[in-house]
């Protein structure tokens, strides 16, 4: 088991290394470099004439005159050793400062979304598989089609509309205005929970639709295997038969795809954040791409991907614990 964990941990580091190279390439892609944009941002409209030499000196100051691989190494070294993701010119401070609180809020949103997804999809999926052709089963089919077809931003707009016209509330944002700048307290936390509901529903929408199908499909396959009959033949109650044997296996594919779910949720984050006005990483990512504030964008891309890679690692281990077959094969 220890060897298995170590093996997966090394795989995680290797993947992150390649991801970091890809992120760095993306950061370098836009035309012009940091010095151009920095000079433009700082001096445009001030009447100061910026010469080629000025830009050259800014370039030196940030070490942009050095070759790409050297800059990559400095960048990655700063992240690994000092947790320093470089400067953000749009906010004129370090990336770490800009990202700060948003990381926590994003993770809270992620956890809320995942909880909602699994609390809905696992029980309903199992129920639909056991009661084939029932109302839940048909409803599930419709929902899973709509889960893909209705884009999340549409759903966000619909909920926004309902909120405004029927309940006279704004569903945007993560806090009420009076709590925006307030220090953390029990009341603020409750306020956050109330605001989390709509974004979590929107983000959980398509992930739930897919997981429902997965759970139902696995469950239907397992229900007719001999070991279920065997358990029944030994006189176990129906509820116990289902919950103890096939249901346990139906959870495995959910655990193994948690990385994909997070990938999907992060993927939708920027768009939903734009519509609902959420102060989290997705919104900042979108803004920094539009501003070409590439150090911020790179840092966020790297963080989001790290969460996914890490959760893949965790899900591998949890799966090995849940399912002895994998443990034996993986060695």
């Amino acid at each position: 088991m220890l060897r298995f964990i170590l093996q997966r941990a090394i795989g995680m580091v290797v993947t992150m290394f390649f991801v970091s190279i890809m992120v760095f390439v993306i950061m370098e892609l836009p035309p012009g470099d940091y010095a151009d944009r920095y000079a433009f941002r700082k001096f445009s409209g001030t009447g100061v004439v910026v010469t080629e030499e000025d830009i050259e000196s800014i370039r030196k100051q940030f070490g942009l005159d050095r070759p790409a691989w050297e800059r990559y190494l400095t960048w990655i070294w700063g992240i690994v050793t000092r947790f320093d993701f470089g400067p953000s010119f749009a906010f004129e401070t370090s990336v770490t400062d800009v990202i700060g609180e948003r990381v926590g809020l994003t993770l809270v949103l992620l956890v809320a979304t995942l909880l909602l997804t699994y609390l809905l999809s696992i029980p309903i999926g199992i129920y639909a598989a056991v009661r084939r052709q029932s109302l839940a089963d048909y409803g599930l089919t419709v929902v899973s089609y709509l889960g893909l077809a209705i884009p999340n931003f549409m759903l966000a707009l619909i909920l926004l509309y309902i909120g405004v016209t029927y309940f006279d509330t704004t569903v945007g944002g993560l806090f009420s205005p009076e709590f925006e700048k307030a220090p953390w307290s029990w009341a603020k936390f409750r306020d956050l929970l109330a605001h989390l509901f709509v974004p979590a529903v929107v983000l959980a929408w398509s992930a739930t639709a897919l997981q429902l199908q997965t759970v139902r499909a696995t469950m239907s396959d397992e229900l007719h295997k001999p070991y279920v009959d065997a358990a029944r033949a030994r006189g176990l109650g129906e509820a116990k038969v289902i919950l103890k044997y096939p249901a346990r296996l139906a959870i495995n594919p959910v655990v193994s795809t948690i990385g994909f779910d997070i990938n999907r949720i992060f993927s939708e984050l920027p768009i939903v954040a734009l519509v609902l006005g959420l102060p989290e990483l997705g919104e900042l990512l979108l803004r920094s791409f539009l501003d070409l504030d590439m150090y911020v964008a790179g840092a966020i891309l790297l963080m989001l991907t790290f969460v996914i890679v890490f959760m893949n690692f965790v899900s591998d281990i949890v799966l090995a614990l849940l399912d002895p077959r994998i443990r034996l094969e993986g060695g």
Partner: protein
Amino acid sequence: MAEERGGLGAEELRYYTASQWQLIWWRFRRHRGALVGAWVLLVLAFMGAFAPFIAPYSGTARDRDYVYGPPQIPRFWDENGFSLRPFVYGVKTERDPVTLRKIARVDRDQRRYLRFFVEGEPYRLFGLIPMRVRLFGVEEGKIHLFGTDELGRDLFSRLMFATGTSLSIGVLGVLIAEFLALVIGGIAGYFGGWIDYGIQRLTEVVRVVPVIPLYMGLAAAFPPEWSNVQVYFAMTLVLGLVGWPTLARRVRSHLLAQRREDYVLAAELAGARPAWVIRRHLLPSFTSYIIVDVVISFPYMVLSETALSFIGLGLRPPTISWGILLQEAQNVRAIEQAPWLFIPAVFVIVAVLAFTVLGDGLRDAADPYAVSRR
């Protein structure tokens, strides 16, 4: 059965001698939902291809008399009597004396009769054939079936052009992704070993980064001075570049299973080179899978394009796509004042649903182990 050959009835004989494609077609035909999906998509594709003919106006023409106007529904009768030829009411834009905002006022006494095959502004069909005839129009003034936006542009016309753009970008994106997937997945699956390992790692790296943020990063790199045509093709390239890993994985696993088959060994013993074996023997063995893969991944392409253009990182106006149209419906105010701006969303939803149903039907039909006959 009247005629018996080797103990088989005519029906059964027909079944056993049918080609692979015939079997697929028979199975597909029974899938009613998939057939409906296919028809819906044909209609959408037709709309997109013949957009300048179906749309009464160009995508950028403004109607100063009808700004932010609701949809005009053609009718046959009203309190002034019945007419066999459908008509819409005349409109006039006036300023509200209090708020000074422009509002379109409907004049119920003025009828504009709908006519078919009217002469309109000149245009080029498929960018080639110069034409003037449009599918429909009114004699005086203008008709706006789906209403107008804040600049007085006809939403129906714009939607026709957008359908063409969004579908074609999806098609090109899928083709590029599938081509990359076939080449990369093919190499990995055929050679195996360390080549396979390296490609697998690469695939995993692209797959693990969240998709839309990755798209955003690549789209942000488009220089602002690029023309709309350049952005359009760059978008298809980006969609293809991000979309291939999922497809490549499936190609690889198919190949891994197939290359151990005897017929591959036979070809190799006969002295066929790898490229030949892949192209002539292995690829045809799962053409149907490839088609299904393409259809299934198509909605993701369309949705990605829509999402990217929606947030302002994809196509740029004056290009018209579903995402660009939905940009105007981004906030609550738009929903309250002009709910018809959401009609493009209905098109997106219908297109994605149609593709999903069609993909499901094709997948069932293409499965050679399906028990169902005909």
